[in-house]
């Protein structure tokens, strides 16, 4: 019981800290109280603006997430399985890993234009190396005996991927996905901040220019809530399902 309550108590502690800080500051323009956000939140829901911008950001997160996981997964798996390919691609991975997100975003906008494709490409390229590195470690840890099994029993490529390789990569995919979602939505916000006319990042940019801290917080917390729902409603149940054999 105490274990289940701990996260709630922890969040309550953070809220209490916010209340104390805003009371001490006593300037709603700099740090409004949590309850001062409620009417603004309701106003954005009623006008439909919140949903419009949330859905635009979510769609970009979804696209970038799927592309980054697929591309990073393929590259990581290939690099983990082939030492020769790894020797060729490893320097690229190191370069892309150390390329600041902002540089990639600016370059994508400059080369492709201020378009949706550029925005999604910029976020995807930022995340692919991280996914590839995690999946590469998973691919290196694949059980050679199960490989031999698949060869002797002549499993098709698809069956081997689905039933032999992907289950072994499961924990690595889950780690990449969890880290991926968290990083991708933050980069999406920067991309929107710099070059889109919709999305949570765009709204934060707008209210930043108006120095409206309350509205910045309304949009930031709305999206954090959505991402927490994704974590609890999608990622964690999927992970529990994928690893049920370990607890059986």
């Amino acid at each position, binding site marked *: 019981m105490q274990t289940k309550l701990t996260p709630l108590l922890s969040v309550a502690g953070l809220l209490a800290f916010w209340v104390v800080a805003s009371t001490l500051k006593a300037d709603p323009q700099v740090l409004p109280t949590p309850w001062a956000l409620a009417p603004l939140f309701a106003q954005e829901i009623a006008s439909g603006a919140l949903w419009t911008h949330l859905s635009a950001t979510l769609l970009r997160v979804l696209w970038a997430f799927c592309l980054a996981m697929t591309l990073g997964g393929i590259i990581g798996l290939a690099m983990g399985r082939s030492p020769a390919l790894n020797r060729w691609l490893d320097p690229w991975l190191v370069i892309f890993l150390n390329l600041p997100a902002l540089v990639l975003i600016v370059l994508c906008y400059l080369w492709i234009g201020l378009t949706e494709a550029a925005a999604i490409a910029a976020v995807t390229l930022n995340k692919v190396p991280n996914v590839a590195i995690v999946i590469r470690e998973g691919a290196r840890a694949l059980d050679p*005996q199960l490989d*031999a099994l698949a060869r*002797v029993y002549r*499993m*098709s490529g698809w069956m081997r991927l689905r039933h032999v390789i992907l*289950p072994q990569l499961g924990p690595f995919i889950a780690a990449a996905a969890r880290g991926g979602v968290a990083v991708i939505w933050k980069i999406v916000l920067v991309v929107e901040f710099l070059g889109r006319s919709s999305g949570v990042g765009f709204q934060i940019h707008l209210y930043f220019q108006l120095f409206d801290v309350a509205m910045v917080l309304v949009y930031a917390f709305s999206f954090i809530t959505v991402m927490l729902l994704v974590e609890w409603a999608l990622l964690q149940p999927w992970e529990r399902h994928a690893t049920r*054999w370990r607890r*059986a």
Partner: protein
Amino acid sequence: MITVSITEKRFGADRVLGPIAFEVAAGETVALVGPSGIGKSTLLRLVSGIDTDFTGRIDRPDAIAMVFQEPTLLPWRSALDNLTLLHPGLPRERALAALDEVGLTGKDTLFPGQLSLGQQRRLALARAFAGQPDLLIMDEPFVSLDAAAADRMLTLTEALIARHQPATLFVTHDMAEATRLAHRTLTLEGGPDGAQLAQGPKDRTT
């Protein structure tokens, strides 16, 4: 019938296997013995097609099954799935019958982790025989079992081989196992040009 004619197998500059030639007839069981590290498992990997990097020629049938030293099951799939996924054309009823045959009746929905080591080994045997193999390869299939469990497994394997009649090649360290199960024993021994078969295969006297 399988025909093995290997000129050599190398790991880098190291010549592990020298010239090796033998045949296993349909329905015949051949034991492969020899000291540890001599290359018995390497030879099995060549015969099974897991390792294709060697000089020589091996003619083998398409329907091959292998029983490894460890059960080597898919731990994330049920016992029944461990059969049907590796034999995609296998009807559910026949897969269940294969489980019955090795004494795993009613265990079809369990994950391998829920089975004892002995049961996992029996599942590996069921998987091997479920595909009606023409060639069965076993790499020390009874290792790490206690004497009683090994004896039960040996009896079961003997019965399954008698019923399904595949050509069987198996590695063992135990001469009693070889004598009991095999029609003939091949001995792999070291030499200056890699391991080779000792002359004069021994026929089973039983």
